[in-house]
């Protein structure tokens, strides 16, 4: 990405010192359009739906539910789903449970580094409404104020079958081209950023992590 500082289409990066600002890209992300040929877009959506790579990043206790899916009983690899250790290559982010403010910062960094189209599944009651941590001083209550969520799975904690069902539904949604969370995020970036900065007090990273 360019480090063009003159153009208007840049982020402020005011959380960084003047020296640090030179180290990071400050371009503003743009929404992407679907391919103009419908058949190509359909094929791409089919491929995206059938090859979901999950970012291996568990945020709370719900993420323990991912492990049974990988092993012999449920074996999600037969649906084309695999874990991926790096955000650059993964396309699904499963928010596994409560999100503390500290973790939220890392989630934002990882999410922004993922390449679109990218999808978020919010697992458990905690990301939906705070769950049993609703009055905690250091967890956020409603996750979709901070990042766009494509699919919710409620329960405390949900069974692996519930997560599997959610993934299957996500696949159907992707196939028809409904999951555009990444675009929603970019289009309403200022709103999301304002919400994020309201809870993250020590904002010492670029405004958008390329």
């Amino acid at each position, binding site marked *: 990405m360019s480090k063009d500082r003159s153009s208007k289409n840049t982020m402020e990066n005011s959380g960084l010192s003047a020296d640090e600002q030179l180290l990071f890209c400050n371009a503003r992300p743009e929404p992407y359009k679907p391919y103009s040929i419908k058949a190509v877009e359909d094929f791409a959506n089919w491929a995206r739906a059938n*090859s979901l790579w999950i970012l291996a990043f568990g945020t709370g206790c719900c993420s323990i539910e991912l492990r049974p899916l990988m092993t*012999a009983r449920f074996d999600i690899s037969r649906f084309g789903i695999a874990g991926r*250790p*790096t955000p650059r290559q993964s396309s699904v982010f499963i928010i596994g449970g409560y999100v503390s403010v500290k973790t939220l910062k890392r989630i934002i960094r990882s999410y922004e580094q993922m390449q679109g*189209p990218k999808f978020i599944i919010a697992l458990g009651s905690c990301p939906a409404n705070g769950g049993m941590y609703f009055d905690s001083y250091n967890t956020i209550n409603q996750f979709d104020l901070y990042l766009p969520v494509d699919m919710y799975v409620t329960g405390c904690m949900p069974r692996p079958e519930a997560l599997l069902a959610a993934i299957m539904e996500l696949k159907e949604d992707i196939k028809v081209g409904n999951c555009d969370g990444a675009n929603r995020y970019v289009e309403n970036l200022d709103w999301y950023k304002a919400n994020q900065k309201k809870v993250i007090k020590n904002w010492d990273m670029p405004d958008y992590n390329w």
Partner: protein
Amino acid sequence: MIYASMSEWFGRVGNFGLTLLIVTVYGLLVGALIERIIAKVQGRVGIPYSQPFINIAKTFFKRTAVSHGIMFYLGPVFRIAGGIGTLAFIPVIYGSEMFSNFSMAGDLFLVIYFMFFGQLGMALGAGESGHPYSAIGIARGLSQMTAYEVPFALAVISIVIQYDTLSITEIVAAQQGGWQNWTVITNWVATLAAMLAFLGMTGYSPFDIFLAPQEIPIGPPTEFHSAYLSFLQINRALFGATKLVLFMNLFFGGATGWVELMIKTLLIYMVAIVVGVAFPRFRVDQGIRFFFKIPTLIGIMSIVYVQMVLA
């Protein structure tokens, strides 16, 4: 090589393109098959056979990509050039004009050079990405490569002395006429050294420390995504299959048809898989020490063996 006409040259390039396609598709299918076998060992069903193809389409159709500089673009290009270059000089089917590619006198040298080339290109590309885990992965990968190249090079020198030629086609020709003529029988010492080096080359455990998904998020390709990654995925299949074909040619008598090729390469691959599912991972220093000890000794012995016994 001198070509009679332009059209003959184009014909050969076309044939090579066909070989490239078959070998790549075969490599992807074998990859899926191996995944399924490993899954069966673990009591799972495993991925569908189409999964590697869908994965490549998926990464290719990603909508966004970021760059880290020119070398970052060139890394995957060098890598796939290394894969294609290696295959280009290996005769795939013995006795078939169509599938002998650009094999010529001295192609063995060229092939070994190309096998290095892709790795080094990838190292430069991954280095430019600036990710610390990439750098760690590269350091581990290159040091392991240096270590396993020693027994492999010794084994190759041994069979070069044995057959007195640097042409892969002639090496295959010398092994025709039944299994008793294969290098694995006539020069089993060199084959043993090369097969130990092969374990390091395939990157399965115990020698998969440089990819280590859990510790250094898959090492060198950590930062590669979108279309860059699809190139790497294609190359992984192509290069893997090419190495199998090379080993088959050098040590297991080559192949006179595609079916023979597929059976032989699959069996060679199974050596790495069986060792892989049975043994845990070596640390990088253990891996290097391993190659410098017994496999290197066997490699030296293989040269002595050809000089003393076969001469």
